[in-house]
């Protein structure tokens, strides 16, 4: 049983959605701080552009495409949940999950290649930022995938359908973070 | 008011102390005023049998005046303080009178090293005089210092000069001072730099030209003896 507090809605926004927005707000400042620091360094150190040339732009672009597609399937899952079609939402959630998996696989190949060429996290501040920012983002992808997997089984039985929307919001946020990371880390040479 | 506790030895020490006195007068006025009104109200409006408290919303214009007017006066005082503070700051940290002498100051765990230019008056020449924990400067002379750190942050602080500047590894920070009287005073590290932070006292020795020349001669003598 939930407390009555959870069911109230003085703002008109369901409590769960409101909370997810606050989670996203606090995440924005975390990534904002990291990327802000990176941008300050990037301006102060023109040589970062040369290091960025060693990143794999094609793989990054492919991953951007994969994430955007997975966001689409998250939207479709939400739509299915709105229509109270749990099994369909379940399928789309796992499609989104698959998108995350592809993203991580490509990422791991990229990193493996870069590390084998000697561009490790300790090499200089650019690579420290590169692995740190992308790694923090990847952790969010993994977290989102785990949550999606856990909630999907309730959703399949048409229970707690509002959660589909909540995880979708989060997934879009993770997607948007990547949209910032990709040009900053890969393209700005 | 600071000069009661510690001498003023640099040319800008008086400016900084003057600013501090100005702020002390302005905020002191407000402090005394607010505390007196506050304590007065607490004494006057103690609970009395049969007397009910007043009902004041504080939302009406004539009521808000009581905080509105002090509010504007505080703003006025703030502007005064900001202008005074910026003037002193610009004078001490942003404008540098041309250097007559330049010294290099290096902080490390846990000592200060000083590079004096030596008889030729230039840094990075063979006759530089290097010392540890002892800085010799001329009185009434514009000094520029090049501040460096070898390992962690340190802060070069000479309280009698009212001078303080952090030293940062990887950077050379330039500052200035001009001593106005001779004497020997403390140099302290003002930024925590590890377990020896309390153990890096250095001394600044302000000398007349004659004393300074004699010191330099003795240093060159020991250098050539080696």
């Amino acid at each position: 049983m939930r407390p009555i507090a959870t069911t109230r809605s003085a703002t008109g926004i369901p409590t769960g959605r409101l909370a997810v927005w606050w989670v996203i707000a606090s995440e924005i400042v975390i990534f904002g701080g990291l990327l802000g620091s990176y941008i300050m360094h990037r301006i102060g150190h023109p040589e970062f552009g040369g290091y960025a040339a060693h990143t794999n732009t094609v793989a990054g672009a492919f991953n951007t495409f994969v994430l955007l597609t997975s966001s689409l399937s998250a939207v479709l899952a939400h739509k299915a949940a709105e229509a109270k079609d749990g099994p369909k939402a379940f399928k789309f959630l796992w499609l989104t999950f698959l998108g995350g998996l592809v993203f991580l696989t490509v990422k791991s190949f990229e990193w493996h290649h870069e590390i084998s060429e000697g561009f490790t996290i300790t090499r200089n501040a650019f690579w420290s930022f590169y692995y740190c920012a992308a790694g923090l983002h990847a952790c969010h992808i993994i977290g989102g995938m785990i949550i999606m997997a856990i909630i999907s089984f309730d959703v399949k039985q048409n229970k707690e359908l509002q959660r589909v929307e909540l995880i979708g919001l989060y997934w879009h946020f993770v997607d948007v973070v990547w949209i910032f990371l990709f040009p900053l880390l890969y393209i700005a040479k | 008011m600071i000069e009661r506790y510690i001498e003023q030895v640099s040319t800008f020490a008086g400016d900084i102390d003057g600013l501090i006195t100005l702020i002390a007068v302005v905020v002191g006025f407000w402090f005394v005023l607010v505390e007196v009104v506050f304590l007065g109200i607490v004494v006057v409006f103690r609970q009395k049998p049969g007397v009910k408290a007043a009902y004041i919303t504080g939302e009406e214009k004539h009521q808000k005046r009581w905080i509105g007017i002090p509010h504007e006066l505080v703003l006025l005082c703030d502007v005064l303080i900001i202008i005074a503070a910026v003037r002193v700051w610009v004078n001490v940290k942003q404008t540098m009178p041309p250097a007559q002498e330049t010294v290099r100051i290096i902080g490390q765990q846990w000592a200060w090293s000083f590079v004096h230019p030596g008889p030729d008056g230039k840094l990075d020449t063979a006759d530089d005089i290097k010392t540890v924990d002892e800085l010799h400067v001329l009185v009434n002379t514009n000094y520029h210092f090049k501040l460096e750190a070898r390992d962690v942050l340190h802060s070069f602080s000479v309280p009698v000069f009212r001078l303080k500047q952090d030293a940062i590894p990887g950077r050379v920070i330039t500052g200035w001072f001009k001593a106005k009287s001779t004497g020997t005073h403390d140099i302290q590290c003002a930024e925590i730099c590890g377990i020896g932070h309390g153990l890096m006292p250095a001394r600044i020795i302000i000398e007349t030209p004659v004393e300074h020349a004699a010191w330099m001669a003795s240093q060159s003598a020991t250098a050539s003896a080696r």
Partner: protein
Amino acid sequence: MSTSAGAAEHAHEHAQHPEHSHEGGHDAGHHEGHDHGSFWSTYVFSVDHKMIAKQYMFTGMLMGLIGGFFSYVFRMQLAYPGFHVPGFGVVSPGEYNALITNHGTIMIFWLAMPVLIAAFGNYLIPLMLGCDDMVFPRINRLSYQIFLISALVLIASWFVPGGGFGGAWTAYPPLSAKSQYNLTPLGSTMWVLAVGLEFVAFLLGGINFVTTAMNSRAPGMKMFDIPMVVWMIVIASILFMGSVGPLVAGAVMLVFDQTIGTGFFDPVRGGDPILWQHLFWFFGHPEVYVVLLPAVGIVAEIITVFSRKKLFAYKTVLYTALGTGVLSFFVWAHHQFVAGIDPRMANVFTATTVLISIPIAEMMFVYVATLYGGSIRLATPMLWALAFIGEFIIGGVTGIFLGSSGSDIYFHDTYFVLAHFHYTFVPIAVIAVFAGVTYWYPKMFGRMLNETLGKIHFWGTVIPFNGIFIPLFITGMGGDHRRIYNYNNFPDLARPDLQHMRQFATVSLLVLLAFQIPFFINFFLSMKKGRLAGNNPWQANTLEWQTVSPPPHGNFAELPNCYRGPYEYSAPDRESDYWPQNEPS
């Protein structure tokens, strides 16, 4: 559960049987099914916001005692260098650094934050808003559990090889980043981890607070009917969320620099040590207001009740809090005037910093105006609240010396700074906390505290508090720098007049610590022996006083409706001088 119509009457009926009502809390069957009152589910893994609040409060108090003990050890060292401190031994320079670092860290992150935000926030928000719990009780529990782990990690960090971290609570790299410099390879990493975990705990708690306040107010409770302390805790939570993010990222960077050797703060590899200072103070300065706002909120509740007055200009208080919050994001570099930033920046930050005096001064004016025309009762909570106003003003005005770039050149990192921020933090984390604890104790435990012991404790704390820090203002003006473990190494500072000041401060601290004993006697004895409090011993308006003391799980027998603002005291044309928020007109 009964379904009587008026919650107030029902609560009144319960007040006759406090023992019964307490039992009722455990089998409040309409609510959490799993809470059947076993020891573990009631006291350890509870999801009841009141129990979580108490967990936060007791953990915070315990950590505060440790922090107080640390201050005793290093103050003894400063007054009597090389002395064998009873209960500790001779203090080495490394130990001294670890003591001051952890004293600062504990007092801010493990005392002020958990007690002011988490304990009072958890206890008061659902009760004052008239709902049965937080919106996410299990996230609330998780928040406390993470907080507890963070405290344990911090405590463990003092006992690992190399000892606790000693790079000051600001943890500036490169000192904090490399073990060859700080000589505490494990201690420094565990310190960062503990602080990071603590941030996560408060982010979870903050989301809960903000969402609860936004969505779960009692029917009829409009924005401006919310008690000020709830507003303040919510604004503080939002400030915390908005400012801590960059430092969370910074903490990740610092841990990587420490453990795997990345180069974020290493100038040789393109990093920058100043970056940490920006990330730290971008959080660090709003953090001051994160703990200040709940404190002024508590004071607002108390002075209105004990002067039987409506809060003067409610909206003004709210706007000054919001204004302070917004401004606080643009002042951080006043901690770095002489740290090697561009000197031109200092002028901007001087202006913003000095201007923050306006909302804060206005807030103090409002409180003084609230007292005007009141019927002031000097009960212990009121004494604490008044002491907060009187003492915090000292902290406020001395801040002007430090915010002005010109004078900060001299005062930066001296004892003047230390005395200044203790004049803000002690009123916040000690005086306001005691105000809140003595005020809400009857609600939390159902019994009254002893007034005589309370007043002994009050005067025995407030007088020595001034005795500690006024001398330290003077040693600061005399040139004492912070974080130096023995001033005898500096010829100019080894003067006897300065040493007498240091000894006076230390003796005052000993007196202050001794006078905490009456508090703890009072606190624990009154739980069993105190006079029964009844529902509303202070005759206050806010909703938490309209249920039984202590409230059962679920808080209200019937959730209240709200009909008016929280400060309708001494309203004209009414016999009674208070008017509970849930009483229909």
